[in-house]
């Protein structure tokens, strides 16, 4: 594992804290490769802990997509109440949808 102190020398290797501070923006950039920055890539190559962290966070984001497929179903009461409400309202005006 690499040092955890922030470095002040730009040529010094990145610390885990510095690397992890950049992660929210790196992930938000959304590119297929996390980064092209040589300093960050060097850190990823040499720090097993941070590379495992990145792998896990990417894995979680990928797995989240499977939750888009719905698994829950509302009870029949919901549609009954919607129908009752719609029946008590004036009919929609075609095109605008507003009454």
């Amino acid at each position: 594992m690499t040092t955890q102190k922030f470095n002040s020398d730009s040529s010094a290797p990145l610390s885990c804290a510095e690397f992890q501070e950049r992660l929210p923006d790196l992930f938000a950039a959304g590119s297929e490769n996390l980064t092209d920055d040589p300093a960050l890539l060097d850190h990823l190559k040499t720090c097993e802990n941070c590379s495992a962290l990145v792998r896990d966070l990417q894995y979680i984001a990928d797995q989240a997509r499977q939750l888009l497929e719905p698994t829950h179903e509302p009870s029949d009461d919901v549609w009954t109440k919607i129908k009752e409400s719609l029946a008590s309202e004036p009919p929609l005006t075609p095109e605008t949808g507003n009454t």
Partner: protein
Amino acid sequence: METQGLQMTESKASPGLFKRNPPIAGEAEAIERAKAGDAEAFSKLYALHKRRVYTLCLRMLGNVSEAEDMTQEAFLHLFRKIGSFRGESAFSTWLHRLTVNLVLMHLRKKGLQLVSLEETINPSEEDAPKRDFGSRDVQLSGSVDRVALERAVASLPPGYRMVFVLHDVEGFEHNEIATMLECSTGNSKSQLHKARLKLRELLRQPEPATQADLKEAAL
């Protein structure tokens, strides 16, 4: 329910959302018929989208009764305003945005309306994820099934859960989430990162042994 303040503008969806929400067979025709007030078309649209709308409400609210009420409100609102849908974004994207806005309005009315959501969605210290500078542990890759992930998401602090569901599950962009939650884009990114860190922490915890497991181990 009062819905003044609910924006029904149809913003252009990001390409990711179109990919996630491909057109559904029979949907376009049902929309046109529903615009003309056809009750059967409403029924068709409800059947097509009820599960995703309800699942979204349930994930955001964590409560069956409130999720059903919000599902009802979302469809009623949809049916009243369907004439303003012009097809510039996927219908389901439009419906989901409407649903998210209704749920957020509901949450604000319940107690978040007086304080900026940006502040209130920050969890307490004990809920916050720990930074990971040292411990090597088992990798998650390949080990997390849908049920475990669903359970972990449900146990996230509300603010983390909201941003995670909107971004990683529903596919909204950070700028869209920032607008919906009335926070900065940076805050949305930061909350999402913390949510994923917290999920990693939760998913790496061993599942508590059940009584059956204990009995089996004793044999």
